[in-house]
């Protein structure tokens, strides 16, 4: 019997429970290679490409664009050309019967939700995943980001590590009060969160401004910093895309913000309507605009980076790696040059400022290697 493969709604990130096909790139009857992009999947957070799990011919588009279905639901069928229509019909009927049965069982299993904890530094929202007794990884997002930025990366690392993604002050669900915006103060905020969660030391993963915060933690508390993985970090040079910072703060309308967010990615199509809406919802909260302005004025006055942390990074005794998308339009990848020899530098083609979203699997592998290889 010819090989038939189910295409199912993928799970991007811990919190994803449903998604829809934004567009099909292949029509029934077209042949596809394994790993070839055959559809765009839109979730409540992001639009992402769906790569074919097998080679063959796309025989059915079970799901029409725009229809929301749960993770794991059948969206299409790929098969070898010799599979008959009757075989495909039987395969689909069989899949649907099994899927319904499993779904009823799985419905009790709730999606992971962020939690909140009060600390001396203020309210912290975080998302934890992974075994509590495993070595810890703490994720620190960048300017205007939140813990959802790690939605692709965190599940990949949660199998072997205790992972915690948190919201910095002024962001996500953490306190909107931001009196001290400089990196050492933000470092103390993260350390207070680690205290509250009983994390002594952790591997730190910092993105952009969060990279500068991670370096500051390594400086402030090197004994609690097992390693540093810095993704397009701030702090290694003075250039930064001032239009992005200003545009992000000022954009009030979805269309304005869409254009701003597109500059984060090598492929602008990754920015979906829902991602824009989620960022707008964050920006509408009382206190957020003020917090973003306070941060921008301190970190990027006059469109230049104010905190240069190369020396601090050079003094950090543990392992360090720097990861950069070659098409980063926010902070130039050239900032990764001229670092100490021990620092591993990884550069990804076809990625922009968000390598942890754009190349999640490879970035996860690098972080696991650095954290596990000590």
């Amino acid at each position: 019997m010819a090989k038939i493969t189910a295409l199912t709604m993928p799970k991007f990130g811990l919190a994803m429970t449903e998604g829809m096909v934004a567009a099909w790139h292949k029509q029934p009857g077209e042949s596809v290679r394994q790993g070839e992009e055959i559809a765009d999947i839109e979730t409540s957070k992001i639009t992402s490409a769906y790569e074919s799990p097998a080679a063959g011919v796309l025989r059915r588009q079970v799901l029409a664009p725009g229809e929301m279905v749960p993770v794991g639901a059948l969206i299409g069928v790929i098969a070898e050309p010799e599979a008959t229509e009757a075989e495909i019909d039987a395969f689909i009927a069989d899949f649907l019967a099994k899927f319904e049965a499993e779904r009823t069982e799985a419905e009790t299993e709730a999606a992971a939700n962020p939690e909140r904890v009060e600390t001396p530094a203020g309210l912290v929202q975080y998302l934890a995943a992974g075994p509590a007794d495993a070595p810890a990884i703490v994720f620190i997002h960048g300017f205007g980001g939140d813990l959802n930025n790690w939605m692709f990366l965190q599940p990949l690392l949660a199998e072997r590590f205790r992972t915690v993604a948190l919201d910095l002050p002024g962001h996500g669900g953490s306190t909107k009060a931001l009196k001290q915006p400089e990196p050492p103060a933000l470092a103390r905020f993260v350390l207070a969160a680690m205290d509250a969660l009983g994390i002594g030391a952790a591997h730190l993963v910092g993105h952009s401004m969060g990279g500068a915060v991670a370096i500051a933690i390594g400086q402030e508390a090197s004994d609690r910093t097992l390693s540093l993985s810095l993704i397009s970090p701030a702090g290694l040079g003075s250039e930064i895309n001032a239009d992005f910072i200003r545009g992000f703060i000022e954009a009030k309308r979805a269309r304005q913000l869409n254009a701003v967010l597109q500059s984060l990615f090598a492929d602008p199509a990754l920015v979906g309507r829902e991602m824009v809406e989620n960022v707008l919802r964050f920006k509408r909260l009382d206190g957020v605009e003020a917090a973003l302005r306070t941060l921008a004025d301190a970190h990027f006055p006059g469109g230049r980076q104010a905190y240069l942390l190369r020396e601090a990074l050079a003094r950090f005794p543990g392992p360090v790696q720097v990861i950069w998308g070659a098409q980063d339009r926010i902070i130039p990848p050239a900032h990764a040059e001229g670092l100490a020899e021990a620092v591993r530098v990884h550069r990804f083609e076809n990625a922009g400022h968000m390598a942890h979203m754009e190349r999640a699997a490879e970035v996860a592998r690098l972080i696991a290697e650095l954290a596990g290889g000590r």
Partner: protein
Amino acid sequence: MSKKSFRQAVNEALRQEMERDPTVVLMGEDVGGGMGAPGEDDAWGGPLGVTKGLMSQFGRERVLDTPITESAFIGAAAGAALRGLRPVAELMFVDFMGVCFDQIFNQAAKFRYMFGGTAKTPLVIRTMYGAGFRAASQHSQCLYPIFTHVPGLKVVIPSSPYEAKGLLIQAIRDDDPVIFFEHKVMYDDEEDVPDEPYTIPFGEARFVREGEDVTIVAIGRMVQMAGKAADALAKEGISCTVLDPRTTSPLDLQSILESVEETGRLVIVDEANPRCNIATDISAQVVEQAFDALKAPIRMVCPPHTPVPFSPALEDAFIPSPEKIAAAVRSVMASPTRQAAA
């Protein structure tokens, strides 16, 4: 962030703005209600419990139960707004506008203009609208087109709990008179609503979903109906943009025009009576400004031009349904002008 009903979202917006700003006061019939009467510890919070608990938290000084005289308390609220308070008055059912409309359209709406810009009137009037509550002709109308017609008034029609909280806080902070419409059958609808205060700007439509074939513009409760229709149509291979204008004054015509430029087809869903309603207004403006973009005639899905019936069967048939919306979308997809354009 937690799940909140439309009722809780409105209550939380009022509570948080009253905590933030001591000039915010509530007034209306039974907005407190019952509190202190024998056996009544807490306020009823109006006939549907929307303002429940606010009188016990803020006291009778700031939550004023008024006599059943809309002309008096709406007028008092307009005057108080002129003198520095931020009153939120409750006109229990918008159907009662007839007895207080002079205070709204000839007084509050005109102050800023006629006093040469020196006066501001930060007045909010919350009011219930809409059919489906088995409340008969005098408690089921929409009437927002009448307010939209009057320059100087802002008209807000939220389509969900998240929208209601952000738009009501924006309304309270706005310096002009705002009429805020709450659909009485939506109070138990639930969705995720942030615990923190937030604002949604007026005059910016929400793209509820984006599609390629047809633009559906829907008002208030009709946004849900349009979403259900779009779900059904997606299974037939018809992809719809659903646009929620959020406010009919100001109206985000730009977003509607941009969407029609993309899809070439427009269906407008409005629960208000079909003559001179929001659907006819949008239709006229789109035809005037984007006629060349249209591949098919515009279709309007509205109730018949009758009072809202009391018979449950007739009332259900009166309200635009997902099926009627889907049928209208199919008809613009099948329109002969489509072939001519293609």
